[in-house]
């Protein structure tokens, strides 16, 4: 096998073979392969370099030397990749070359340092912000952003006072990446420069507070589309960070004043954007402005599943004034638009559109049939019951469910029609129909016809009937439910446990205690929750007895139930669960204990901060901050120093911010 072969695979295998030779004797060849024309071969060579650990100074210097290979981009990229992967060990060597006369080399080194993310080289990168070469300065700013160390902040802000637009542009991005607050006085002047506006708004979106809202509202009037959209996104991001009462005064009211005007029109026209993040912000803004001209543009945005729920919110805010335009568009609308329109007809109680909804029940699209069925259930026009009943045989399950849901809406207004329908269904051959009967009888609170269905041969019918019983009042309900706890199907027993828990009352105690011994953990869990809600302290000893052999969700529910029934005095087993092997259990114990103050923290602090599961550590620091307030700052600092999980780190940083 030869490195000089014309066959890519042969060359690759040659490099693989080199791995078994001592590195010094093969360095030359491996370097040659690092510049091979095939990326497969190059990758193999980089792997070979990385295998040779630790790295001699000569090797590192040779890799750095390869960065000068301006005529062979492949070799240079391989060297970059290798140096980045070598990481900290390469840093001193890299730094020693930051004064090299070749600006390209300096730039490469800065990029590599940034990707290694080593904060030791921070001062060197800061110094490079004053490099003679523009590209090097820009790279320095960019990589300071990547490293994300706040100590770079004052230096970056100084750059903003200078003159180079391109550099300032990069600094703005870097500031956003670092994410630490920046004084508005440093940023506001940049808006004078039209090229910097987009980046400045982006930066404000990440860092800004209430103070920059006037600037952002003004930014909605920007002529340039990208600046306008950036201002819109920033506005909504800053809004999210405000307390609710300020959101409306500082953002929503000023937006509402734009209704009917040219700015609103421009924003509505922008709803054509492709970028979902931009659209999300614009839809919220347009919805708040409340301008009916937005009807069709919003409806089109609804086609995207991702944006549908913000759009519907926007529709709600604009209100019924947009209905005429939506209805006019209906005949040519795509299915999803027809579905949304049907929903809005129901939400706004729009009279005169019933025919449209009835016709919609025959639509080709299941989505439209479903929406129309639900809408009819809400509006309850005459004649709808029969039509909805027909849909119980629809081919699509989601349509059948919607029809049933719609029908149940008529329990109060047309009980007789519904009751006749139930009678017919309850004697049907198909279990699915009898199940529908049970659910309709539940909506009718019919205590007379439900009991036979509780004994149906089909488990899904029994389950529906048992669930329906929860809402029905008649003397033997509880005894029916108790009996259902002995059903052979766990689903039916589960429905019975739910029903008993939902009903509550003294009669439920006995059956729920029996359900504690069910073989199905979910039945047990439900019974435990029911007992906690009942609050009969007499049940405590049964629950404590369960703790010894319970696990998973049963144990979790039992811990809260013990606390709910026994209060502070009963917490010993909960504290014991803090050292349970299942992280879900530990988390639940933390939550339960937190409800009774912080007395337990000291004894378990170290163990929980060092818990192997990130979720436990996260819950614990939350509890710590909540229960101990400012007192917890030193512990949180210590936790942050030892924490490697990003999500937990973010949490601790946020908590510290709040406490300081």
């Amino acid at each position, binding site marked *: 096998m030869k490195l000089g072969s014309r066959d890519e695979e042969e060359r690759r295998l040659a490099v693989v073979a080199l791995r078994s030779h001592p590195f010094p004797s093969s360095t030359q060849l491996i370097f040659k392969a690092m510049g091979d024309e095939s990326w497969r071969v190059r*990758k193999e060579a980089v792997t070979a370099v990385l295998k040779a650990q630790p790295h001699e100074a000569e090797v590192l210097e040779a890799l750095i030397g390869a960065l000068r290979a301006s005529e062979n981009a492949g070799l240079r990229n391989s060297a970059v990749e290798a140096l980045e992967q070598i990481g900290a060990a390469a840093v001193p060597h890299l730094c020693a070359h930051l004064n090299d006369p070749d600006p390209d080399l300096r730039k490469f080194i800065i990029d590599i340092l940034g990707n290694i993310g080593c904060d030791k080289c921070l001062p060197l990168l800061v110094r490079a912000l004053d490099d003679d070469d523009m590209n090097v300065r820009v790279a320095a700013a960019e990589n300071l952003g990547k490293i994300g160390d706040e100590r770079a902040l004052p230096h970056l802000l100084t750059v903003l006072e200078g003159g180079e637009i391109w550099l300032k542009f990069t600094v703005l991005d870097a500031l956003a990446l670092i994410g630490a607050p920046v004084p508005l006085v440093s940023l506001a002047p940049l808006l004078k420069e039209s090229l910097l506006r987009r980046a400045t708004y982006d930066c404000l979106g990440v860092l800004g507070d209430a103070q920059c809202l006037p600037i952002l509202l003004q930014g909605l009037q920007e002529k340039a589309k990208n600046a306008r959209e950036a201002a819109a996104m920033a506005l909504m991001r800053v809004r999210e960070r405000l307390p609710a009462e300020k959101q409306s005064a500082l953002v929503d009211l000023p937006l509402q004043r734009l209704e009917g005007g040219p700015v609103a029109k421009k924003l509505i026209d922008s709803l054509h954007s492709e970028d979902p993040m931009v659209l999300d912000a614009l839809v919220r803004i347009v919805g708040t402005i409340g301008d009916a001209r937005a009807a069709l543009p919003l409806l089109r945005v609804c086609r995207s599943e991702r944006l549908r729920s913000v759009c519907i919110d926007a529709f709600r805010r604009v209100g019924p004034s947009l209905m005429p335009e939506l209805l006019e568009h209906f005949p040519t609308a795509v299915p999803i638009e027809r*579905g949304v329109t049907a929903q809005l007809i129901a939400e706004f109680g729009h009279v005169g559109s019933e025919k449209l909804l009835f016709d919609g029940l025959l639509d080709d699209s299941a989505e439209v049939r479903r929406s129309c069925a639900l809408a009819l259930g809400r509006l309850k026009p005459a004649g709808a019951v029969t039509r909805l009943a027909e849909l119980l045989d629809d081919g699509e399950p989601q349509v059948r469910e919607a029809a049933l849901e719609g029908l149940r809406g008529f329990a109060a207004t047309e009980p007789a029609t519904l009751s006749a329908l139930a009678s017919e269904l309850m004697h049907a051959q198909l279990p699915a129909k009898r199940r529908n009967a049970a659910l309709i009888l539940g909506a009718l609170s019919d205590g007379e016809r439900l009991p036979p269905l509780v004994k149906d041969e089909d488990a899904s019918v029994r389950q529906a009937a048992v669930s329906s019983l929860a809402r029905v009042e008649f003397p033997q309900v509880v005894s029916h439910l108790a009996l259902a706890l002995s059903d052979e199907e766990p689903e039916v027993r589960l429905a019975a446990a739910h029903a008993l828990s939902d009903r509550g009352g003294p009669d439920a105690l006995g059956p729920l205690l029996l359900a504690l011994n069910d073989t*199905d*953990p979910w039945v047990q869990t439900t019974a435990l929750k029911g007992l906690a809600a009942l609050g009969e302290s007499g049940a405590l000893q049964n629950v404590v007895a369960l703790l010894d052999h319970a696990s*998973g969700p049963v144990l979790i529910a039992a811990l809260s139930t013990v606390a709910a029934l026994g209060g502070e005095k009963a917490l010993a087993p909960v504290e014991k669960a803090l050292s349970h092997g299942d992280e879900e259990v530990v988390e639940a114990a933390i939550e339960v204990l937190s409800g009774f103050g912080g007395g337990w923290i000291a004894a378990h602090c170290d163990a929980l901060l060092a818990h192997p599961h990130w*979720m436990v550590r996260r819950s614990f620091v939350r509890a710590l901050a909540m229960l101990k307030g400012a007192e917890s700052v030193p512990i949180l600092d210590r936790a942050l120093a030892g924490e490697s999980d990003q999500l937990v780190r973010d949490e601790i940083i946020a908590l510290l911010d709040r406490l300081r």
Partner: protein
Amino acid sequence: MPFFEPELHLTEEEFRLIRDLIYHHCGLFFDEDSKYLLDRRLLQRVTLHNLSGFREYYQFLKYDRKKEQEISDIMDLLTTNETYFFREAFQLRAFTDEIVPELAKLKQRDRTLRIWSAGCSTGEEPYTIAMLLLELGCFDGWRIDIVGSDISHRVVQHARKGVYGKASFRATEERYIKRFFTESEGGYRINDEVRELVTISQMNLFDQNRLALLGKMDVIFCRNVIIYFDETSKKKVIEAFYNTLRGGGYLLLGHSESLMNITTSFALKHLKNDMVYQKTDRTSGGVVT
């Protein structure tokens, strides 16, 4: 019942818990960009099971007695099961024209041929292999086992049923349909002659215990499955394949899949029609760590 908009949203934390759980179970890794996908698709499951939210759903996935079934159901929601008969023709030609003749010679003594189609989705792949072998017609008196497996319960049922619609036949020559299918139930049903060669079973490629039941294989097809996996999972699965293959056996991956950076224990063999991986007989080598 909500119209369109979900009331619940997957939090960062729940996303991570559920993602990690799925990852450890079956190697599928969802990055931050897929949070939205998980949010939308799994919400239906939360509602279906009448759960209060994603946290409870996570507990369900972790503890429920039907958790295996549930995970297999969500596989269906989260991955594509796209497949069709005679997919990747040049590779199949390499199989019939080069690999099979070699095996036929090699195994003339014990007269058995064992082929595994791992991640076979609705079964088109194992049935294709069976049809090709029947077409070759030189295995009279041989024992031929073709095992098709997939993690998804739903596709496995479909594969067992063996009835296919138009989309499955986009690359099928008319003569195959004539010879191996009968029209029925609004589709085409695969004939018993083909069916006899094929066993379909539900199997998670990460379930070591189940995989051990398979026994040694001469050829493994695992096409368009590991694209969903990250490097660690790929390594795990490929190692399992290595252990399942007889020395000298072949591993056929999909078009866009390779073992680069995953293992050196297979040799890339250049056939006339395709490049395939072969388990070399030497016992050294192994999965790159």
